[in-house]
């Protein structure tokens, strides 16, 4: 958390260029899309406890526009975060044992309900579920 907060500070003061910062923010689930930043939060298997759900609502109310979008992979995206606020959002997620790590790029990702406990491919010899359980997104 502190590491990413420092990276954001360095981006804002110009010590990091956008090219240098891009892989760092993507590793933390932060995209820059056509109209705004977007933070994708991992929800392993799409399962949330009430405390986590309330924290997501708190994040939406405090740092976004009061709502988020659940994805087809059962994660949630906040579409209007501001860059200086993202470290605080990640801290709020960590407070309820959530994060946004590896919710982008070429890595083990969350899946739709049909792949909850099995591989998405019948012929596959390995299920991604254990990896998903540990890596979350």
């Amino acid at each position: 958390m502190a590491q990413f907060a420092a990276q954001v500070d360095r981006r804002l003061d110009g010590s990091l260029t956008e090219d240098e910062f891009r892989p760092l923010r993507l590793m933390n689930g932060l995209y820059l899309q056509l109209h705004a930043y977007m933070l994708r939060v991992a929800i392993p298997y799409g399962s949330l406890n009430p405390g986590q759900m309330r924290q997501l609502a708190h994040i939406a109310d405090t740092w976004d526009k009061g709502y988020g979008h659940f994805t087809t992979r059962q994660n949630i995206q906040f579409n209007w975060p501001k860059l200086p606020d993202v470290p605080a959002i990640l801290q709020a997620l960590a407070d309820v044992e959530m994060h946004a790590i590896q919710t982008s790029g070429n890595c083990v990702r969350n899946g739709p309900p049909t792949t909850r406990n099995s591989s998405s491919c019948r012929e596959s010899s390995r299920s991604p579920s254990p990896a998903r359980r540990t890596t979350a997104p």
Partner: protein
Amino acid sequence: MSRRFTPKVVTANRLREGDVVYLTADDRWSPLHHAAELIEDEAHAQMRLLHAAAQKLLVVGAYLADARPGPQGPEPLHFAKSFAHAVRRTIPTLTKPSSAPAWPSSLPRWTAALTAA
């Protein structure tokens, strides 16, 4: 024969907020597309793009977008931008309403959910 240059505007995202902004003729960044400088000369467009790209602490990802003259200023040419531009002008989706807004009767009722907080 050289191709005719399509007029451009310079657009980017604000570094801090991520909002889309457009470079105006007096070197401000405006969220309004029709406030942008419409650039009709290719060399000038490249110069304005370099000027925008140099503002690394203000904006990120500056690029030239096709545009055309309109009655109130430049209008976007690309369908997605035109659509987003039209939505922004007609549907208040970009701010969180403090209370439920009166919904225009000309719009389908289901679109009201877009602004529900």
